[in-house]
């Protein structure tokens, strides 16, 4: 362990990317993926090499920029949380058709059990949908190694590779040994300059080529160092285990020695021959995967083996939520362990807005204005301010996806819910709010958009906000009338004045924008500590 670095999974991926010779990393912050890009941003060698690492406005722009870097022949990585891949889905799916030139790895970080997310969707389905290879590490060392392997694979087959991790992999630390660093690629054009032109005639040809490559991907999976068949003597049960679930399986047997045959999957498409071997020699099959039962669904209809397949579908493993060693103990019929009961007096302690947070003053003002109206008119968005849904504010009525506050408020206003209010953060506004505001302006919707400008991307730890200092000019440029763009200072001493301005703009039957602006208390604190260190 002494010669190893103690790294988060996210950090192992970032270091792997730097060592494998990336020329750029593109991302929008999102838990649990944020630390990948931050590691590159804080890396001295990345600075010396001038590796691109500033934040993108959203995951779609990030994915496209990474694809452009690949077009130019250099290695690129793009990182996002699982729901970010929804935003980037259009370029992601199409990048499988265009293929890559320089190596291209797309990292998507899933969040089973929704520690910090609005769903627990499984990014492997996107990889399968796009027909690209997927890598899924079981530990931090594999995460590092897979980045090297993934770039080789990407350049060998001219295909983007999806690296799928989960929160536990992203935010767990373990020892990682580095391997030899590689030079960055030189600038070089794609050999066919029509490769990236997805006109139907070209796209049809490229799609056939992708389908042709798929057979090679399966062959690669059969011999992949990340797909391992462990022989076992007790063949009453065969275990197919993916990614980090391997660790929970091993935890249940002394020394990690599982008596049953085990096929560990770290690379997709599934290695067909290895799967057939497991199905052939075992009486029953248990499938263990963090996320959705994707492999289980594939195996059910894969080979009509007539054998009992156990997993999330038959209730052997719970249908939702993150795996852990105890769930596996029960699935394997082993002795489960449990500590002491939690006393009845236990209460929840949900996260909340920090003391001194500007959003507190904004919500207090908004709540006072809304008291005169019926409840249920405030559409909100993804960020720290989503905590305004909880006690003591209970100020907002929706949180769906990045940017949905403005467009949902517009739709509700179209339906006759007037006034309708949208509450969105400055970074979320630049991520996906601008186009929605344009829709509202074009329709002259009776709508008030409150852009809570804390001058940072707060929830993920204070990353740069894309339109810092330009929010008013963006709104004006889209066509919001200048006299209906109002800036407030969310402080207790201005409460009465802020209430008055909000009332005026909510009464206006067109598009108005109110911008409460005060820096995030956490970034102020960080800045002051740096200053007086």
């Amino acid at each position, binding site marked *: *362990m*002494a010669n190893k670095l*103690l790294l*988060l999974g996210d950090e192992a991926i970032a270091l792997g990317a730097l060592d494998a010779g990336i020329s750029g990393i593109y991302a929008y912050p999102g*838990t*649990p993926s*944020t*630390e990948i890009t931050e590691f590159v941003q804080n890396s001295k060698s990345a600075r010396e090499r001038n590796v691109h690492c500033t934040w993108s406005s959203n995951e779609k722009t990030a994915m496209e920029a990474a694809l452009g870097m690949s077009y130019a022949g250099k290695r690129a990585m793009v990182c996002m949380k699982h729901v970010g891949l929804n935003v980037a889905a259009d370029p992601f799916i199409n990048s499988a058709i265009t293929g890559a030139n320089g190596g291209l790895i797309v990292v998507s970080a899933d969040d089973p059990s929704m*520690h*910090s997310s609005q769903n627990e969707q499984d990014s492997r389905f996107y990889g399968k949908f796009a027909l690209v290879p997927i890598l899924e590490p079981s530990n931090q060392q594999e995460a590092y190694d897979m980045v090297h392997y993934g770039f080789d694979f990407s350049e060998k087959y001219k295909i983007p590779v999806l690296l799928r991790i989960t929160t*536990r*992999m992203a*935010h*767990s*630390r*373990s*020892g990682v040994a580095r391997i030899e660093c590689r030079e960055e690629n030189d600038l070089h054009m794609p050999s066919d300059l029509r490769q990236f032109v997805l006109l139907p005639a070209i796209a049809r040809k490229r799609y056939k080529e992708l389908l042709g490559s798929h057979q090679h991907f399966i062959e690669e999976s059969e011999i992949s160092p990340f797909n391992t068949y462990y022989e076992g003597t007790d063949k009453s049960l065969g275990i197919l285990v993916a990614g*980090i679930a391997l*660790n*929970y*399986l*091993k*935890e249940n047997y002394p*020394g*990690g020695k599982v008596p049953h045959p085990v096929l560990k999957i770290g690379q997709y498409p599934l290695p067909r021959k290895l799967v057939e071997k497991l199905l052939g020699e075992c009486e029953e099959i248990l499938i263990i995967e963090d996320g959705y039962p994707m492999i289980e669904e594939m195996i059910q209809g894969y080979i009509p083996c007539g054998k009992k397949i156990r997993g999330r579908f038959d209730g052997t493993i719970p249908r939702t939520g993150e795996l*852990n*060693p*105890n769930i596996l*103990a029960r699935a394997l019929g082993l002795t*489960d*362990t*449990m*500590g*002491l*009961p*939690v*006393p009845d*007096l*236990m*209460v*929840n*302690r*949900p*996260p*909340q*807005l*920090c003391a001194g947070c500007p959003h507190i003053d904004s919500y207090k003002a908004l709540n006072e204005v809304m008291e005169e109206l019926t409840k249920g008119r405030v559409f909100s968005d993804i960020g*720290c301010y989503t*905590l305004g849904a909880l*006690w*003591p504010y209970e100020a907002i009525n929706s949180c769906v996806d990045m940017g949905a506050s403005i467009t949902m408020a517009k739709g509700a206003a179209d339906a006759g819910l007037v006034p309708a209010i949208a509450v969105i953060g400055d970074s979320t506004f630049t991520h996906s709010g601008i186009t929605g505001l344009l829709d509202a302006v074009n329709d002259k919707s009776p709508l008030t958009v409150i852009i809570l400008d804390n001058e940072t991307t707060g*929830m*993920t*730890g204070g990353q740069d906000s894309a339109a810092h200092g330009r929010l008013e000019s963006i709104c004006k440029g889209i066509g919001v009338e200048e006299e209906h763009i109002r800036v407030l200072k969310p402080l207790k001493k201005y409460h009465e004045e802020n209430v008055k301005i909000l009332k005026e703009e909510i009464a206006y039957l067109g598009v108005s924008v109110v911008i409460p602006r005060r820096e995030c208390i956490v970034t102020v604190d960080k800045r002051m500590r740096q200053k007086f260190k």
Partner: protein
Amino acid sequence: MKKDIILAGVGGQGIISIASVIGYAALQEKMFLKQSEVHGMSQRGGDVMSNLRISHDEIASDLIPYGQADLIISVEPLESLRYLEYLSPGHGWLVTNTTPFNNIPNYPELEKVMAELNKLPHHIALDADLLAKEAGSARSANMVILGAASPFLGLAYEKFEDAIRFIFRSKGDAVIGKNLDALKLGRDFADKNI
């Protein structure tokens, strides 16, 4: 030697610093380590916990199984009880601060929380905030707690001192000194109360 440790507290109370000190000390002993952290939304004043596993043998799972933790180390009394299901009923120890962090409207009565703690066969409860102030550094309550937990971690006390010197090396001798004092006050309390 293998120790499975649950670290508990409220977001922002510094449980990651405790994990860093233990982790550094374990790595100097050439032990394996796995540590699972909480980032993101919960850090905003919500309950947070971290799984820290150190062992001379390779470690499989990033998560500690329920009922198998050797130790719960908590910087807040209510939070120490939240993870009792992880604690080994036979030999597990619970070490906690008694100063509550009250940021919720329905925080239970402190006497009742303490009564639940006192039911546990193996526990150490100490006012780490008070002891930290005695050490001249109110911010070092987490190091007081670490000191109180140090007898149960299977590593020599000096290893934690070395780790503090390393982890806080950029902060100057005064900060190191205060943290070492805090560690000692916690250790002394534990030695008298085991």
